[in-house]
């Protein structure tokens, strides 16, 4: 996860705020895990496109896999498959997990990010 989020932080000169360490973004969600979207950020064209494709606050989303070269990633949402680049996934903030199953994973995740 961290090996993914670090090169991204350097790619995205904008929209990286101080709280990037404490919030989860879609780009850091490992394959096989589900989460709920909290906020869709980024340039207007991207936000509109993502939201019109059904990726908006409240949508449950699962990362299926990353492409062989690690980027882009494949997502499952609303019963279909969507691929977006990691740079774009980094604009999607995820809601804090509430389900028991994903809490453990998130703790791991927080540890890694802190490290």
């Amino acid at each position, binding site marked *: 996860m961290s090996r993914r989020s670090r090169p991204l932080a350097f790619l995205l000169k904008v929209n990286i705020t101080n709280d990037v360490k404490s919030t989860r973004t879609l780009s850091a969600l490992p394959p096989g895990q589900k989460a709920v979207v909290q906020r869709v950020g980024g*340039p207007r064209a991207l936000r*509109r496109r993502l939201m*019109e*494709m*059904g990726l908006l606050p409240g949508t449950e989303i699962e990362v299926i896999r990353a492409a*062989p070269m690690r980027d*882009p990633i494949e997502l499952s949402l609303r019963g279909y498959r969507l*691929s*977006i680049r990691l740079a*774009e996934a980094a604009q999607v903030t995820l809601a804090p997990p509430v389900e028991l199953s994903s809490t453990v994973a998130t703790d791991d995740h927080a540890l890694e990010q802190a490290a």
Partner: protein
Amino acid sequence: MKGSAAEVAPAEEPQPARPQVVLVGNPNAGKTTLYNALSGSRARVGNYPGITVDVRAARANFGDVVADLLDLPGTYSLAARSAEEEVAVRVTLGHGGEAPAAAIVVVDATALTRSLYLALELLETGLPLVIALNMMDEVEASGATIDSAALERDLGVPVVAIAASKKRGLSALREAVERTLSEPSRPASPELAYDEATQGDVESVARAVTEVWPEEGASTRRSQAWARWALLSLGGDELTDIPARLREVTAEVRERAEVSGRDLEDALIAPRYAFLDAITERALTRGLPRKSRTDRLDSVLLHPAWGLGAFLLVMLVVFQALFSWASPAMDAIGEGIGATQSALQAWLPPGVLTDLLTQGIVGGVGNVLVFVPQIALLFLFVGFLEDSGYLARVAFVIDRLMRSVGLHGRAFVPLLSGFACAVPAVMATRTIESRKDRLLTMMALPLMSCSARLPVYVLLISTVFVANRAVLGPISLGSLILFGIYGFSTLASLTAAAVMRRTVLKGERPPLVMELPPYRWPQLGNLLRAVGARVRSFLVDAGTIILAMSVVLWALLSFPKDHALEARFEAQRADVSAAQAPSPERTRALAALDADEAGAQLRASAAGHFGRLIEPALKPLGFDWRVGVGLIGAFAAREVFVSTMGTVFGIADADETSAPLRQTLTRARREDGSLLFTPLSGISLMVFFVFACQCMSTLAIVRRESGSWRWPALLFTYMTGLAYLFSLLVFQIGRALGYS
């Protein structure tokens, strides 16, 4: 938005009031299959005026009603950015022209909520709709059920479950469309919960809509639908023909919202999905989750290691097909043209008109037809990859690499095809969504060394080098140089893309937000129709330009005729004929005279004069006027350089492997007595061919696909400029280092 829907409709006879039905839907929703099923075999491709987006139109029967059915480009929403989406919006909303009588919205039932989004947007405009719930067979196979009656109640428009690929549900669909057409009424407005502030914004923009497009202000519902459209679409778009006043007001309203911290995207899109989530909840019963065929295939095809292997294998097959499977057909076309030319020459009296017909026109037709096998093959493959769902995966796998030079993942197949021929490759850029990405790919791919450059490289390598000298074990010098040229041209093409992305085609890189559709078996009928449509569009739109250019080029290389020269050779031929009895030697002597005459005539032609005129510019590259004539001839197609050099040097029927031509070239000297073809000038000339846009067909097809002469002009200028620059550098630096 001036273009009208009526222009797209077939316009052979004066149109009686035939209602127009448009077919809209997401990409991959099975729209084409449904269109083909509804229209029978009467489909026809129309080109939307001004932009190169194909809109197909056909007559279709809906019960007793005969209507014009228009197949629009696939789109996920009405918020248009690309040319395709703009066409879909223009025609669907009938702006500036006649509004369609009804729309059939093709909905992918396996992705119900997302596909209904477009239907909902259309419903907001008040356009009479019929929703075709496609892919119901797949829904059933997954164990899910969809209650179409419930959807119909909630949406207030007919919803018909179909499976277009199995021709299921089509008669019910036809009936529903017939009912909608014969009892026209506006569907009830869906009750969407836009918040108060947003509604205020929409009303402000709606007033501007009414101001600039009075006819759209006739109904509040419609002007507000346009206002929502403007708020989502305008600003940073590629749309044309939007009144400045509407842009201003929209920008003002958006800024106001931004200042007060309101998010218009969220405020306009979220209520729609909230509505759709609620109705899907009622209508859809999901099956048990299980691994689908797509999941099983993707676990191999998108596997970190196997995935790359599969990708390379598929691309290898496409490449091999273009490179070698097309050649028998291309050779046959060449032979057929040759046979036609000799038959006509034997049958018609000799003269300028016969030459025009055989060499100019029939030869020109050959220049056009020779592309057809590669175009057909490439589009067969691209169609198969696209319809099966793998083309999206190609982009998924390779996007990371392509992005580093500013290209879209979908540019990979066109770029690869560029190694075979730029003409089909440029046509294949249509699978790329955004116009900017498409133009970028189009402008960069002609630098990939196409198969027409190969004969030129082979001739030059074998002329100036000992091509079969082994350098690295079994690897010969010739193949090493050839390999270097291909690597160099690929690098040049990718670099050109990276540079243009930062200059002429600058702008925000469109994000990659791409559906990975389920794998499906392509329908053979759809594939063949698509191939037919592409070939036809090439013949009609680009073929005519190529033919015209061929004739002009032929004239430049043949005229003016030097009659004194003709008379002198005629006298020499008579001498030879008189002095010798018919014998192989006499035939050879006569053939040599013919070849000499052809060379002398070429020197006297306009192209010959032009070659001499540009010689001062060519000298610093190591070429003389004879190479200049070859370069002019090569404009018809690069490999023509070889036969033109044959003519210039008086060698009949030369090809790149012919020893007499090679020997003559090796001995050829410049006016100052130095050798014309040295390793250095040979490399300089090959470098010239790597870069130069020596191909009128490429220019013609770029004109066709970009919709203006601006892009081919830029292509020609930048490629020829680079060619000149690099040849100059090679020759001058080589000379300075003491090579000759």
